[in-house]
Structure formats: structure tokens, C-alpha cells
């Protein structure tokens, strides 16, 4: 069943991609096949392989239970928040929080996770910024 749904999504993607392809503005500089031909070929391959999934699906993989799904979702949300927070709060603070969260969700005790988060953040900052001179995001406090 998973493969059928995946095939359907793939098929929609192929159609969407081909449709977007038709919208490409042609330029006055032109080569014989133009900017649309290659996308059409790709859309065809995408579409055909998606049809194969629908016609001949593999056995479904073992999906995690809902709770786990939710957990991965929350972790993704934390990473997104991290990406957006970086320029605002600076590298050290945001990284400590994000790393602590991930470590906690991977099974560390809350206190241990908080310590790990701080250690990872300061460790990366020391090695990559202070020693190697890589520029990391600067927050209101300059680190």
C-alpha cells in the first residue's frame, strides 16, 4: 500500500513538473531543443517509474507507531526553529538548545542532555570558530 501511495505522489509530482515545464519562458537566444526538452524527458521517467510502483508495489515497510512519527515531526520543527533562530540568537545559545533537545529525545536523561547540548555547542564553537576561524552565526552577544 505504501508503494501505491508513493507512486501516486510520484505521478502527481511528474505531472506538476511537466506542467511547470510548459510554463518556462522561452528566451530569444535559442538552441534547437531549448530549455524544456530535458525536463520533459525527466518527467516521463518519473511518471513511468511511479506507474510501476502503483502496478507492482513492494511489500510495505514497517512504519513507526504514531508516537514516534510525532517525535520525528517535533524534531524537524526544532531543527527548523534552530535554522531560523541562528541569525537572531547567535550560534552558541541556539546550538546548545537544539543539541540538548536531540540528545534528550535520543534517550539521554534531561540533565545529561542539557550538559551534552552545552558541551557540543561550546566544543564546536571552540574548534571551528576559535581554532579554525570559521565564521559562525553571531547573536546579540557576539557568539
Amino acid at each position, binding site marked *: 500500500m505504501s508503494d501505491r501511495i508513493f507512486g501516486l505522489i510520484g505521478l502527481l509530482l511528474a505531472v506538476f513538473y511537466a506542467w511547470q515545464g510548459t510554463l518556462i519562458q522561452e528566451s530569444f537566444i535559442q538552441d534547437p531543443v531549448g530549455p524544456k526538452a*530535458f525536463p520533459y524527458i525527466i518527467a516521463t521517467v518519473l511518471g513511468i517509474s511511479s506507474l510501476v510502483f502503483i502496478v507492482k508495489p*513492494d511489500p510495505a515497510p514497517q512504519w513507526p507507531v504514531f508516537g514516534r512519527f510525532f517525535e520525528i515531526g517535533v524534531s524537524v520543527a526544532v*531543527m527548523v526553529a534552530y535554522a531560523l533562530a541562528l541569525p537572531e540568537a547567535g550560534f552558541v545559545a541556539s546550538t546548545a538548545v*537544539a543539541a540538548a533537545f536531540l*540528545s534528550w529525545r535520543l534517550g539521554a536523561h534531561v540533565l545529561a542532555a542539557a550538559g551534552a547540548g552545552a558541551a557540543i555547542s561550546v566544543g564546536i564553537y571552540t574548534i571551528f570558530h576559535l581554532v579554525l576561524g570559521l565564521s559562525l552565526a553571531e547573536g546579540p552577544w557576539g557568539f
Partner: protein
Amino acid sequence: MDVLSSLADGFSVAITLQNLLLALLGCFLGTVIGALPGLGPSNGVAILIPLAFTLGLPATPALILLTSVYYGAMYGGRISSILLNIPGDEPALMTTLDGYPMAKKGQAGEALALSGIASFVGAFFATWGLVFLAPQLVKVALLFGPAEYFALFTLAFATLGGIASRNQAKAAFAAALGLGISTIGVDGQTGVPRFSFGEVHLYDGIDFLVAIVGLFALSEVFVFLEHHHGAADADSSKMKIGRVTPPISMLKKTAGAMGRSTIIGFVAGVLPGAGASLGSFLSYSLEKKISDRDRTFGTGDPRGVAAPEAGNNAAAGGALVPMLALGVPGSGTTAVLLAMLLALNITPGPLLFQQNPDVVWGLIAALFIGNVMLLLMNIPMVSIFVRVLLIPPKYLMPAVAMISFVGIYGISGSSFDLLVMIGFGVIGWFLRKLDVPLVPVILGVMLGDQMEKNLRRAMTISDGDWTALVASPLAMGLWAFALLGFVAPLLFGRLFRMKKREEDVGD
């Protein structure tokens, strides 16, 4: 022999204090990365590319650092296979079959030392193979025109699913997905934006480094979150090593196995779509067929440790041949190495050998140096690397995720790239669940631009006549191979997989 004099020039490039130190650092990091479960050659090197790139290392030193990591990771994968029965990376899977039983018999140190020597033998001779074979391939590749290149790229994608692929449609889907992603952004030939939905950030296209780190490294973090492996700690009581030098008699007994496996591994590495996993698998199976007279394989036979290790390291060297000479990688790890070259603004292929011989031969010399360093490092220092296994994933994986973010943020300093990377991580996790291979996606993102360019160039030359793609005998040959490579797994794949499963459970 102009090959040898080029190689000598390469050594003069590689032997500077800075480069030697970088090689040493790379070997050490690589072994650690290979040893850690959840980090292998592909995602380990993937995380380091953006870092090497943002640190502003010049091309040759950066290459030396990263290839040392690549070879080092190939060495490191065996440590957890032998001690914990968990392969540190995919090619090290076959090493668990005899390595772990040896460790259980109290011969862990011997198994580690023997596999280190076997790795050295495999990698050393494969690098010689690279030295002599790559320039020959370059001569052929110089005859390629745009139509032949287009056929060659198709060949690479068609065979990438490989003999071990479960589902060719999924490999094709993955390749098309990657190629589709590569068309995002302003079209290089006519200057019109494609698939960018008016988003300025997308005009430059999607950086393949963002895609690689997301698909390989972040999706691994999600896999760990899914299974909560984070809690599993390695048990230090299993880590008794014992003597770390193998007896001479054991080396004599395994010499034949190493020799045969090196050749098989090298050939498997050169062939497109095979790579190190197949190299180690074939070496082990063949060695079992030849030498297993007393049914000792699977119960801790030293030859069963030497064969797959020599095989996978030889394949790692062999896989560099098509990557350097044609610019078309045949496996996941070489795809990542290609990404590294492209990030450094070096396009591999026949012209590289003519225009930047210092880069090519410096790199090859670095492989030799790294190899010797790895051998010297791995025999006496193995107990240090073993400690690395004790780092629990619950602390390791967050660090991996954060270093990935640092690398990508360093490239452009924009949150947008980070969001795209997270997106790739999620897609990568779903694709892995659905058994869709990720390597064709990466390769599509990297090679899509070149593939299209060659197609359109060929069409411009022939003025829109599509039959030009199959006009020359060379192109026809490539198309035939591509077709064969795509269809053969459908016919033989079932047989091969059944055998592999037999081997996998046969411990």
C-alpha cells in the same frame, strides 16, 4: 614510463609538511568516522566537504585531507564489525561473518591486525591499478563528444541500481528526482529561470552540498530518532583485544585470499554501479568457494576476515578510476568524492589529467601516503580507536547534526539553505523507508547540469536531429551497455539476492 614520472611529480606535490599533517589528520578522523556506527565513508565525507570548503583550503590540500578520510573510513568500518558484530558501514558487513566469531574466540586483536593488513594490501595494489588504468581510460574518454557523454551519463544512472538493486523502477525514480532537482534555477544556456517559482533563493539552483548533507547525514539522525538506538551503549567488557600482531603463519595462510580478493575487489570497483559493498561480498563468496574445505568459514576463519577487507578496500581504490578518468562515479562514496571535487571547482574527467596533472597525481600520491599511514596507525593504535566505539549515539548524533548545520551555514550564511537541508533530510528518511536508493538522487543533482548541457550541445551540432545521439559506434556501445546494465538486474537480480541472503544469515 611517463606514468611513473607523473607519479613522482605527484609525490613532490604531496610531500610537504602541511600536506603530510593533513593526511595524518584525515587518516585519524577517517578511521574514527568509519568506526562509529551510523557514520560511514559517505556521510562522514559529506559532512566534512562544506567544512573543508569554507575553511578555504586550496584544492590539493583539501583533496588530500578528504581522500585520507575516505580511505580511513574504509579501514575503520571493520572495527565495530569485529568487536560488536555491527558493521560500521555497509561494505564492512561481510567482515562480521568471520570477524566477530574470531573476537568471541579471544582473537579480537589478531582479527583487527589481520584485517588492517588485508585492508592495506587491497588498497595498496588497487592504487597501483588506478595509476596504470586511469590514463588508459582517459585516452578512450578523449574521443568522447557530447553525444557520447550523454550516453555515458545515462549508462552511469542505468547501472547505478546495480546487481544488488531490489527494484529498478525505484533506482530510475531516484535518478529522475535528482535530475529534476538539478534543473531548478536559471538555465545556463538561455538564461531563463526554471522551476524557481519566483523565489530569488532558487535562481542559483540547489547547491548539491546542501542536498548531500541533508540526504546522507540528517536522514541518519532521523533513523536514529525513529529507533531510539540512542540508548544502546556498547558494552566495554566485550572490548578485550589481546595481542595486536598476527602470527606469521596466519599471514602466510591468508596471503592467497588477500591476493585473489584484491583483484576481484578492484574489478568490482571499476565497474559502474558496483562499489565496495559488492567487492567485499564477491571476495568473501569466492574465497569461501575456493578455500572452505573444512567448513571453517563463518566460525572465525582468518581467511574470511582477510578476503572481504582486502576486497572492499581494493574496490574503494578501483572506484576512483571511472570517477577521475570519466567524471562519472560508480558508487555512493565516489559520488561524494565527486561532490568534493566539484565544490573545489575541479571537474574530473579526461581534461583534468591534461590541465591539472598536479591535482590528479598529487591526489594519487596522497593515497599511497595515506595508506602507509593508516597501516602504521591502525596496528599499534587500534585500542584507541576501539574506545571511540564507547561514545553513545545519544551524544554523538546531536553532534553530527550540529556539525552538518555548521558546514552548510558556512557556505552561504543563510537560513534558507538550512531549511532546504532539513527538507532533504526528511525526504531522505522517507525514501529510505520506501527502499528508494539515495545515491542516484545525489548523482542526479550533481550531474544533471552536465548531462543536459551535453544533450543540448549534441543537438546543436546535429541541428535538432535526435538520431545523432546514437550515430557513432562508441555511443551505440555505451547505449547497449546502459540497456544491459538496466535490464540484467531484472533477470539475474533475484538469483543474486537469494544467494546474498543465504550468506547474510549463514553465521
